[in-house]
């Protein structure tokens, strides 16, 4: 269906306007005095351009960037890092990390998931603070290199295929196919990525879907980072399970009572799919590049 292919593109090219501000400790603030007191009119200075990412400096310590929902923070913030490092003293620089309203941001979660879970009810742009000191060892994984991001990404893909196909499809691929998946993500190449990824979305003709659906459900109200369980896309009687069926089974608190007020939003890629949507369809069309459905349960905004 043409419509379905459009969904894949819409998911891939989703962007979040994000404002990165360098964390100001006392020393840097004194040095920055001449730069404060600017009025709200901003002079946009295009520092660099990549095919789909324009970088705007608002002030010397503030950058606006459109972040791809499907990528990872440490993969798309090279320019941010380089720009801020120019205005810092060498001895102050150690591993970069990001924080939103006091919460350290897990670089190993896709950007869209972090936004939906933590900031979707607030006004745009997404305001992220950039740190180069005091890495929160107890909260965040280290990200020593691009290789670490690749290793993490490929590990997620392998786990997804273990659930969908007992790892048969991904293990049959050659190393160059794995590389193509990673390069497609890294370079924002939809066609390059999907040329290989489409194989991971197939299933045997005699089945009605994958063996199990790769999903993770996130809520900020629980200590547990996410819920992940075995769940089949098709019931014993051959009926397709829906998103609502999944939630009823693994996260019943997320389902609002029929006659009551809507308490929660069930969000994927910034939208609320209907609970009647077949889970198999969601898995094929709304998964992130790592082939997982990352689902956020957030409180219904009050305004």
């Amino acid at each position: 269906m043409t419509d379905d292919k459009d969904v894949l593109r819409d998911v891939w090219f989703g962007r979040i306007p994000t404002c990165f501000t360098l964390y100001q400790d006392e020393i840097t603030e004194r040095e920055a005095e001449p730069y404060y007191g600017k009025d709200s009119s901003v002079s946009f200075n295009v520092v660099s351009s990549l095919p789909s990412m324009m970088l705007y400096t608002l002030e010397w310590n503030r950058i606006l960037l459109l972040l791809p929902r499907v990528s990872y923070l440490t993969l798309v913030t090279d320019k941010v890092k380089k720009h801020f490092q120019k205005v810092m003293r060498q001895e102050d620089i150690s591993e970069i990390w990001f924080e939103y309203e006091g919460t350290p941001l897990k670089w190993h979660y896709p950007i869209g998931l972090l936004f939906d879970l933590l900031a979707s009810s607030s006004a745009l742009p997404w305001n992220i603070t950039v740190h180069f000191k005091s890495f929160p060892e107890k909260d965040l994984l280290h990200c020593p290199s691009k290789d670490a991001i690749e290793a993490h990404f490929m590990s997620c893909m392998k786990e997804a295929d273990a659930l969908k196909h007992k790892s048969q499809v991904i293990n049959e691929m050659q190393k160059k196919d794995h590389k193509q998946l990673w390069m497609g993500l890294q370079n924002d190449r939809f066609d390059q990525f999907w040329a290989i990824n489409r194989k991971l979305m197939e299933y045997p003709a005699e089945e009605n879907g994958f063996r199990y659906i790769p999903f993770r459900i996130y809520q900020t109200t629980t200590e547990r980072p996410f819920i992940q369980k075995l769940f089949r896309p098709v019931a014993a009687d051959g009926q397709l399970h829906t998103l609502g069926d999944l939630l009823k089974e693994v996260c019943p608190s997320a389902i609002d009572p029929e006659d009551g007020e809507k308490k929660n939003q069930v969000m994927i890629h910034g939208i609320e799919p209907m609970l009647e949507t077949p889970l198999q369809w969601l898995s094929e069309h709304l998964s992130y590049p790592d082939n997982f459905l990352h689902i956020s349960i957030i409180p219904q905004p009050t305004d």
Partner: protein
Amino acid sequence: MEEDEFIGEKTFQRYCAEFIKHSQQIGDSWEWRPSKDCSDGYMCKIHFQIKNGSVMSHLGASTHGQTCLPMEEAFELPLDDCEVIETAAASEVIKYEYHVLYSCSYQVPVLYFRASFLDGRPLTLKDIWEGVHECYKMRLLQGPWDTITQQEHPILGQPFFVLHPCKTNEFMTPVLKNSQKINK
């Protein structure tokens, strides 16, 4: 996936119960920790060591028993060395934590571990490796293990190191068979 190579979650929990019963019988300190909603949980062992130059000694519960996880042995000396406690300046206490969780994706148990000083400062993998006794280093380097990576603990949400066994079934089968034999 063959049924005999991989274990379901209920079977995993049953084996853990047997393992912990055995651990209690031999005075080892493995325990079961349920998750907050009690739907699942993991096995946990905490172990303290004084790090004093290159001599390691033990605190707390005796760890004389055989455990089923070779990685555990890496942090212990043979019994005759562990009686000696040297007093000297600059000794630090390190807390080692081992967690055994079930992976529903791969249907196998997975070992998570971390080490920290008592003030909470975590050790890097390099620091931990430096604490491994020489005779175990060789064995570990040759062992049936692929790699160790830092990952988010799926129940606690904190960074841990994870051991990736590339041949878990070969490694686990004798463990499970022995456990069944002992508990009959």
